[in-house]
């Protein structure tokens, strides 16, 4: 019986996330392209749910980096990051490699996707913004 109730609950839960997913990611091609970039270049470390890996790779959920200053965020991708980060008292110790080999468009797509997935809600990052940050070095 418990099992049945669990399954029922689970179905409801899955149903609601699926519906949510359709709604949360508008058919905008940028988000879809961003998801593809995420899957290939970010997911191995930050995981399918954006939740990261305990003590190693930080989550991308409502962090000040993800939601905050776009220049700083773009620079994390262009230059990488190698200083231990602490989130909720947990330290994340792996380094983030630069992904400057991605195009301005790919970086804008993936950052727009990350800023609007995993529960995040923030403005899009344009290719022009990436280009400007890259030019400054």
């Amino acid at each position, binding site marked *: 019986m*418990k*099992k049945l*109730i*669990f399954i*029922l*609950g*689970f179905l*409801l*839960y899955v*149903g*609601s*996330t699926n*519906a*949510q997913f359709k*709604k*949360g990611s508008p058919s905008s091609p940028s988000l879809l392209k961003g998801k593809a970039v995420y*899957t290939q*270049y970010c*997911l*191995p*470390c930050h*995981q*399918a*749910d*954006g*939740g*990261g*890996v*305990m*003590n*190693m*790779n*930080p*989550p991308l*959920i*409502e*962090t*000040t*980096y993800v939601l905050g200053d776009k220049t700083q965020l773009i620079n994390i991708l262009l230059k*990488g990051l*190698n*200083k*231990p*980060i*602490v*989130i*909720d*008292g*947990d330290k994340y*110790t*792996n*380094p983030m*490699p*630069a*992904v400057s*080999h991605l195009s301005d468009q790919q970086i804008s797509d993936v950052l727009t996707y990350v800023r609007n997935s*995993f*529960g*995040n*809600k923030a403005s899009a990052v344009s290719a022009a913004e990436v280009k400007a940050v890259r030019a400054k070095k």
Partner: protein
Amino acid sequence: MIFDLLYIKKFTSVFKPLYVHLDLNLFEMKKPNYKIFSLIAAVILMSYSFTDRKDDIENAGLTLPAGFSAATISENIGRARHIAINKNGEVYVRLAKLVDGKGTLFLTDDDKDGKFEVKFSFGDFSGTGIYIKNGYLYASSNEEVFRFKLDKEERVIDPNNPEKIITGLIAKNQHETKSLVVDNQDNVYVNIGAYSNSCQVKDRSLESPGMVGCPILDSAGGIWKFKADKLNQSYNNGEHYATGLRNVVGLDWNNATNSLFVMQHGRDNLNSSWPKLYTEKQSADLPAECLYQIKKGDNAGWPYMYYDQIQKKKILAPEYGGDGKKEADSKFINPTVAFPGHMAPNGLLFYTGNQFPEKYKNGAFIAFHGSWNRSPLPQEGYYVAFVPFKDGKPSGDWEVFAKGFAGVEVINSTRQAQHRPCGLAQGPDGSLFVTDDVKGSVYKISYNQ
């Protein structure tokens, strides 16, 4: 330092006992209100199905071979790493993160109800390594090793004044934990993990080459041997016992062979760093997680090679000119057992008890913490495996011994696992103890036939 901190808001306290991925759901819930009803209904139904007490769940949710049973003896004790058990069956657990300012827990079952309570906690340092030998409890932080004198009941006499026997070990973010074991001659073996994935010029980056004569190996990426009874030893008076080991978390002394055995965590990122050479599938399967028997002076080959368990060969690393096929220098040692990639062996224990059936005697148990670097393919591990041994050598294939820690069938994102096996210890009655560093459960596995 303030600038290094990131903050995540906590929405989840009310729903803590539920699946972690529900948290996500709650984040997403903020905008469309029409979802709230179905979500609340889902949450209530799911939490109802979870109101069972853990010990009501058969075998604490684990699947075991016939005749074995399991129970959780403690829950929510913190990030439980390695574990040591004294001769009276009382339990010491190291914590990756301090709880109330302390890093080691002492658990006892005073009322004999099968549930262990924290009797006291001590040591203001977090970490992984812990071991009992010859009247001392050894415990490591990420830079140092301490030992506490035990009384004749193997309880710590003075928890506030350990001897600092080893100090100044390198801990540069990656692979910081210092696992340890003590042999029968009062020598302490300590793992010092490499602070890198594969010694690339730019760590974990696309097609970045390996550093020539990898400088990390001078002070890390190996096992160092120290005296158990000397204070303040460091690199200058320790012995560089073995090299070419990327990171070892599980290790044990095998009394049948009178030698050290270690489980290496193999390298990551074959596909993300070398997409032209490795597919996602190859990168998920490779390289092997290796069990090595270690003799003085051994070199296991990191970062110059990895072991490919499918070709059964030592393969030159792509950072050093490899292409997935070229073989590495044969001087590097061969593994004793090669497991599939990325499963993260965090605990190793040679079973010497009399409780389990004959097959298990002197065999190796390995706690696989579970993978993350198999993404985008589903994760693997999250179980305790067993390798039978006879005359100091494996006498059969490895097998899964205890599974179900994660609580879910398929794990895509590491965070979905509710428990991850980490440390192993044997009780005086021959039962096997397993820690979990996600929720802080301690499992006891017994044979009741």
